[in-house]
């Protein structure tokens, strides 16, 4: 390689110059604490906006919030299906799944030593509900009460089996109600305008988790340190640094030992480190789904709203080729529910490319103008950029005679047309809000994402009925059947074409124990080092 040799010389010269000026750059690239391992450095491409759990809904906020704020229930290491006790030592549901009763542990204390009681839980949950933040929908249709100091009751208007999964969400982390109230917090109905505790919570933690906030910065790095008053087994590290870095910088930093864990490496970047004996690569499957939609509203497009067009897309896509783009470890998602959650379809149910059928559908469409495919251009997940996927989709459909033009936009602009339902075709993703299939009913006609694809209920009354039934079903086998039928019908209609779930990779130094991908949190920092 030409540049490496020349570069080495220049590097040597520069290094010499540096040494002359008295700064030894050699040792500054390695973190000082790497020998003692009391500090853990985690590289993450930040999407951080707040440290207030009630307002936080982003991945990065969840990762560090998980270590600072405890929830009623949580998940075991690497699992995303069965909630296990945390602050609540047990819970039971009533017959109709409309009321859940949680019994709290009596030994949980906040970082300032105050005991955690049911009043804190009620305050935290009501605050989330009334603050009108990104996570407020979690409390939609739910109400919370505390019959006594160690009991919390959550009741729902409709039967809702998703409640145990919902309350694992980091947004529903339990805060010290006294402390937060003292600093401007409120759970009143007008909390959206009267709650002023965010600033306080961005500098101080008011939780009962194993770590507390030292510095919170949304652009550079956020540091948490061990909570000396933690009620459980003490934290494994004295300090955890979350460093904001792009995937490419994470790749360099994990190799140089500047960071201990890299969370955003894509499958394409792994070959560079596979042979590195000091690094361990933990791969899982991400619960994020990439999907395409063809707008079902004739007002937006007379073409994309036809069955022929949907068929052309469904049969024209080369799903295996897309997996190649998504990288090793990714998987085709057979329905809208990702494989890691209850209710997912089986791989055999997935759509298969059928060039003849696709071409026949294109023939049926006749002579049409190119359709524009919109996607966010400045956004990538697990190393996969939307642009690359869109380019492959375009090439796939061209092979069957369907002309697509690409219309990227920065995500802030692209979201606008997506949410307004004006895109002819869109390429987007869905991250789970909570690990339950009920979260995926948004894809139904008349529902949140369905409407973005211009899909109203009138055209598919059966699907609307199925979705309504799925939402209130409580019996496990019945739920499984309904969600299966729901997804198969969705696939049949083909307004949405589910594409794939990317691989999720956690790369960590060999000396780091327990750095495992979590489908719920991304990574659960509290399990690391244990």
């Amino acid at each position, binding site marked *: 390689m030409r540049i490496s040799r020349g570069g080495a010389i220049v590097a040597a010269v520069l290094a010499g110059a540096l040494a002359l000026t008295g700064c030894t750059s050699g040792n500054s690239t390695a973190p000082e604490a790497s020998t003692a391992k009391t500090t853990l450095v985690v590289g993450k491409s930040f999407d951080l906006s*707040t440290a207030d759990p009630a307002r936080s809904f982003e991945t990065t906020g969840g990762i560090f919030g998980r270590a600072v704020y405890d929830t009623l229930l949580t998940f075991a290491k690497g699992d995303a299906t069965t909630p296990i006790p945390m602050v609540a030592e047990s819970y039971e549901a009533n017959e109709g799944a409309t009321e859940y009763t949680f019994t709290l542990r009596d030994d949980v204390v906040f970082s300032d030593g105050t005991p955690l009681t049911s009043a804190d839980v009620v305050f935290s949950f009501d605050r989330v509900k009334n603050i009108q933040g990104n996570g407020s929908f979690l409390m939609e249709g739910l109400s919370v009460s505390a019959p006594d100091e160690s009991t919390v009751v959550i009741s729902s208007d409709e039967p809702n089996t998703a409640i145990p999964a919902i309350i694992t969400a980091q947004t529903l982390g339990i805060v010290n109600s006294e402390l937060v109230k003292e600093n401007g917090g409120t759970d009143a109905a007008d909390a959206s305008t009267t709650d002023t505790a965010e600033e306080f919570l961005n500098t101080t933690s008011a939780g009962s988790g194993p770590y507390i906030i030292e510095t919170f910065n949304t652009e550079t790095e956020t540091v948490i340190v061990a909570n000396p008053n933690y009620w459980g087994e003490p934290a494994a590290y004295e300090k955890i640094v979350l460093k904001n870095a792009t995937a490419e910088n994470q790749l360099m930093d994990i190799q140089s030992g500047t960071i201990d864990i890299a969370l955003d490496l894509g499958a394409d970047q792994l070959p560079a480190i596979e042979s590195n004996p000091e690094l361990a690569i933990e791969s899982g499957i991400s619960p994020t789904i990439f999907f395409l939609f063809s707008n079902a509203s004739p007002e937006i497009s007379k073409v994309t709203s036809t069955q022929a067009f949907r068929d052309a897309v469904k049969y024209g896509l080369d799903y295996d080729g897309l997996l190649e783009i998504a990288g090793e470890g990714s998987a085709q998602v057979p329905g809208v529910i990702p494989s890691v959650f209850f209710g997912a379809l089986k791989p055999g149910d997935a759509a298969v490319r059928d060039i003849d059928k696709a071409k026949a559908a294109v023939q049926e469409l006749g002579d049409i103008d190119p359709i524009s495919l919109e996607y966010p251009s400045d956004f990538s997940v697990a190393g996969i950029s939307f642009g690359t996927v869109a380019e492959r989709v375009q090439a796939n459909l061209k092979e069957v005679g369907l002309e697509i033009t690409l219309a990227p936009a920065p995500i802030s602009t692209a979201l606008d047309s997506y949410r307004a339902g004006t895109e002819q075709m869109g390429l987007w993703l869905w991250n789970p809000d909570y690990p339950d299939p009920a979260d995926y009913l948004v894809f139904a006609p008349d529902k949140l*994402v369905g409407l973005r694809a211009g899909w109203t209920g009138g055209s598919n009354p059966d699907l609307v009925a199925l979705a309504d039934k799925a939402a209130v079903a409580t019996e496990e086998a019945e739920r499984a059947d309904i969600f299966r039928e729901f997804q198969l019908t969705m696939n049949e209609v083909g307004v949405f074409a589910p594409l794939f779930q990317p691989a999720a990779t956690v790369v960590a130094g060999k000396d780091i124990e327990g750095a495992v991908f979590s489908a719920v949190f991304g990574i659960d920092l509290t399990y690391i080092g244990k």
Partner: protein
Amino acid sequence: MLFRFILSRLGSAAILAVGIILVSFVLTALLPGDAATSRLGERAAGNPEIVAAVRARYGLDQPLYVQFFIYLGNLLRGDLGTSIRTQKPVLSDLAQFGPASAELAIVATIVAVIVGVGLGIVASLRANGLVDQALRVVSLGGVSIPIFWLALIAVYVFSTLNRVFPSSGRLNPGQTPPSQVTGMYTLDSLLAGDLTLFASAISHLILPALVLSAPMIGLLLRFTRSSMLEVLGNEYVRAAEAKGLPRHTVILRHVLRGALVPVITVLGTAFASLLAGTVLVEQIFGWPGIGAYAFRSASNLDLPAIVGVTLFVAIVYITVNLIVDFLYGIIDPRIRRA
């Protein structure tokens, strides 16, 4: 006389500032989409109540001209508004990211002055010789190289193949920044007497600063050369040489002094226009500065932040020009009247 000159310049600078705010306002208002709602999660965006509340919180429900006058009013009180993306006052964002970029730009400028002016002098003394031709290629190469590409190569060579420099950031992870005096970590760490921190700060700074200096080196080299040649051709220089003064004395005493004045003006303009370079360089080096802030704000349509950054950069530009004008005014009083 001088006072009036400065006053009139300040006056037009203020008008310029209002114009810049107006342009950025109109521009951003023409855009589809808004930052406030695009920050909402998928579920919250589906709730019209939440959307309306968020728009109201950032004053986006007001007509544009009202927003404009509210902004001007706040500005007079020193309030640049709150960034929608970082949710912090734009002023405190600027205070956080400005010094980071300034540090980068200043070091890049120092490097460029030493290398560019030095080589420019060499080139002028060997005008049209082989060395001059070679330096001409260096100079044109400097202004021709795509800085983002140079940055990628630099990171690859010096942070991956050879781990000479860290790849990103301003300090090692977990290192606490020095207490803010100037906001430039190299200076602040020295002021705090912390040499470890200083070593870390400077090792993070060198690579991006060198990359950023490349086009400036090219520019200064060319300009110094032609400025030197112009002076070298002057009567008084030849007279001095004829008087039998040693050549280096002539060059140091007479030529350099005359030749470097125009170079200062170029330097001023070049420094102010480093921003385009910092946007790209900061992006690649993960340098938390104004350039990266500007990029993220613009792509998120974060109006208060965009206007704030624009204003900040324009003020730097105007100030630098004022200083240059002022220097010129002192050196050559005729300009004041023009």
